């Protein structure tokens, strides 16, 4: 059973183990967020809601919202916008990207998989390209609250592993709650239905088993349809 806490709830006296979603006052650890306590390793409060705030090292999916040479301005489903420098791309393509033709490489509304390289105190965020150039090459994008991401991945990746196998899809889950799915149309339909279901029921126990059940029954029905 999960333990739900509200801001100000006393958690522990071991101030050295204080992690995210907590604060220390007079030698005691208190919750600073409304969420679920996780005491494995650090004492953390996993929030039930809230906005995504980029931190160094996160791999996220961004959408180009503006071009302001020599940067692309990227939306990360966060209140803070980030920027991607041309050099991040010219290093890969070996082309010389001229002033004014940046949109030939990445245009408005294009999606990119990026890594957060640096977040400074003023929340200026620098990105680097990660993996493929863009998502233009197919698949679809679904968005869930970033707080549900750990649930879709599951404990040590159990949930995502099952999804990939049973849905027969390529699935990439970014830290900011954007999920890239690529596969056959019907497989993608199934995968997105299931992921949205997981996000909706994220705080129920035995979810992995239930999702497995759901996927199996769906497959059986499909098989019956094909035979009948």
């Amino acid at each position: 059973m999960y333990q739900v806490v509200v801001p100000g709830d006393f958690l522990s006296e071991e101030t050295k183990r204080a992690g995210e979603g907590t604060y220390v006052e007079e030698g005691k650890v208190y919750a600073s967020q409304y969420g679920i306590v996780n005491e494995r390793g650090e004492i953390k409060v996993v929030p039930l809601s809230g906005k995504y705030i980029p931190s160094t090292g996160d791999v996220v999916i961004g959408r180009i919202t503006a071009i302001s040479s020599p940067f692309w301005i990227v939306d990360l489903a966060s209140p803070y916008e980030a920027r991607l420098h041309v050099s991040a791309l010219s290093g890969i393509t070996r082309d010389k990207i001229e002033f004014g033709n940046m949109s030939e490489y990445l245009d408005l509304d294009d999606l990119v998989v990026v890594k957060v390289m640096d977040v400074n105190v003023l929340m200026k965020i620098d990105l680097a390209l990660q993996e493929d150039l863009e998502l233009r090459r197919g698949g679809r994008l679904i968005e869930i609250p970033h707080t549900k991401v750990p649930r879709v991945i599951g404990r040590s990746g159990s949930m995502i592993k099952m999804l990939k196998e049973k849905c027969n899809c390529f699935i990439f889950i970014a830290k900011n709650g954007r999920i890239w799915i690529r596969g056959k149309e019907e497989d993608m339909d199934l995968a997105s239905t299931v992921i949205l279901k997981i996000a909706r029921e994220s705080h129920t126990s035995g979810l992995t088993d239930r999702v497995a059940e759901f996927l199996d029954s769906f497959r059986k029905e499909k098989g019956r349809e094909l035979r009948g």
Partner: protein
Amino acid sequence: MKEEIELIKEGKRLDGRGFDELRRIKIEVGVLKRADGSCYLELGDNKVMAAVYGPREMHPRHAQDAKMAVIKFRYNMAPFSTDDRKRPGPDRRSVEISKVCREAFDPVIIRELYPKMGIEVYVELLQSDAGTRTAGINAASIALADAGIPMKDLVSSIAVGKINGEVVLDLNAAEDNNGEADMPIAMIARTNTITALQMDGRMTQEEFGRGLKLAMGACHQIYELQRAALITRYNQNYESKREEK
């Protein structure tokens, strides 16, 4: 000098409450779909809706703070919330209450985590019966937690006052209008820290002390209700999801 109206009969107040009794409180969390956090609260005949948006980009831009988030707090009474129709829009009174309420949350919200952003709190009074700002603060506190805003504590709030020479808790409209004093307070229950205190009318030093003690006790009760509302909301979801299955 108007004649004193009898507000206490046989040791009870007009609505049957004792001197140290709160009005009925009802709390619902997460009632607005489009808000990041929300709460509907009833305190007796007060009905209030609180919505929280953010952290999101702060407008106007010149009001941004490069080091921390800025809290915007809007207390507003609906035109139909009072006996006589209230002229819509901000007035002197609601601007002042908005400021006092915003400052009541200053010590708890961890603003340093969101430089340049704005956290917007909207408190709308749908029906009023004295003590609206305290109802608003209680609701806003829950809505902020629901929005996932990092805070050090929840803020709880209640008013005390003096009617017919007696110090009583949580005045209703009849008592507020005909009483001698009204004193709303907001505080952090865990640390007994007062974050807002106002007083209208006159009380002796002894009465003030007694009233403050009464109000602080009541804030602890309210804190428990606020906390329970947030926790049962989650458990309810949990139960209903299990039933669906």
